[in-house]
């Protein structure tokens, strides 16, 4: 098997994640899509680390995880706050930027 299969898998997962972000309206699911995308990149990082024999890829993946964790914390807090005020977790209901 070619190691690039992992990268292709990562690409597919990334695309699925992106599509989730674009198509789902529930903020939490949208968030999950974001997480999926992050994980996909992590997989790519790990694969490239292995491919090049360089640990930096794993280090980057590690940082991505940490930052993702931070992001999730803040993001979910925001979702909770929005939900409290609007009783809704749909991203379409938050359209105050409408021109």
């Amino acid at each position, binding site marked *: 098997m070619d190691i690039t299969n992992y990268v292709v898998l990562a690409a597919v997962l990334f695309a699925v994640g992106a599509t989730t972000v674009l*198509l789902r309206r529930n903020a939490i*699911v949208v968030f999950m*899509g974001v997480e999926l995308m992050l994980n996909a990149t992590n997989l790519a990082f790990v694969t490239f680390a292995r491919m090049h024999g360089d640990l930096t890829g*794993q280090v980057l993946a590690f940082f991505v995880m940490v930052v993702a964790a931070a992001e999730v*914390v803040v993001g979910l807090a*925001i979702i909770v*706050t929005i939900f*409290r005020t609007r009783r809704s977790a749909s991203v379409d209901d938050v359209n105050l930027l409408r021109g």
Partner: protein
Amino acid sequence: MTPAGLEITTGETVLFWVIAPLMVLAALGLLFVKRAVHAAMCLVFVMVSMAILYIAQEAPFLGVVQVVVYTGAVMMLFLFVLMLVGVDASDSLTETIRGQRWVGLLIGIGLAVILGGVVARAAFPPPAGLAGGDPGGVANPQALARVLFGDYVLAMEAVGVLLVTAAVGALVLTHRRRLTPKQDQRAVADARIRALPEGVVLTPLPSPGVYATSNAMDTPALGPDGEQVPQSVSRVLRIRGQEKAAPHAPGTELVDVRTRDAGTSEARTTEGEA
């Protein structure tokens, strides 16, 4: 490192071909399931599988971290929030923004095609593998630790700060500002005194009845007049209609009531004190 330092074992190949399709399916579940909880479960599956792949790819430390952080922490957080927001809530999958579905699908497929195409057409070096490059042959976590706390120590610290900040940020964001004055004991007492004319009682409510035949939360006590006291039963039970009738309804065997009088009043005082 040697050019041909890595041979992908058959086991790994099998593992990959078993796991990868399942992962893709689970990921697609994210797109298609109606309930957010199910989506979360799909994601959990993807993440655990991802951890397996990490381990398979000579990144055991990351694999463990993946399980701990993502499935252990992040996804739990998701579930908590889902519970806050409402587990039952299921999404309607009908699109409200005109054209968004097609645009989204197009972009998704396009991304997959482009990324896949790039990967397919890119010239990668022959895979090196990590084992060959390990100086001194230390295990992966140790090697990673060297890099992390050696070359990337500053970034490590910064990320630490980030995490703390994020935690504080989440606290601030979810903090509810108190809009009314704090209800301390005195305020509660005052409120109750004020509410006296409206028929609220000052004393604790009577406890449910304790009878020889039944001694349960759902049975009202009897007052000194022998009438049932509805307030003695929990409000929830009353509303649900799960209240039972007292064994000695008025008008039946008053004598029995009087003989048990002392016992009930004792029980009532002890409960009131408690």
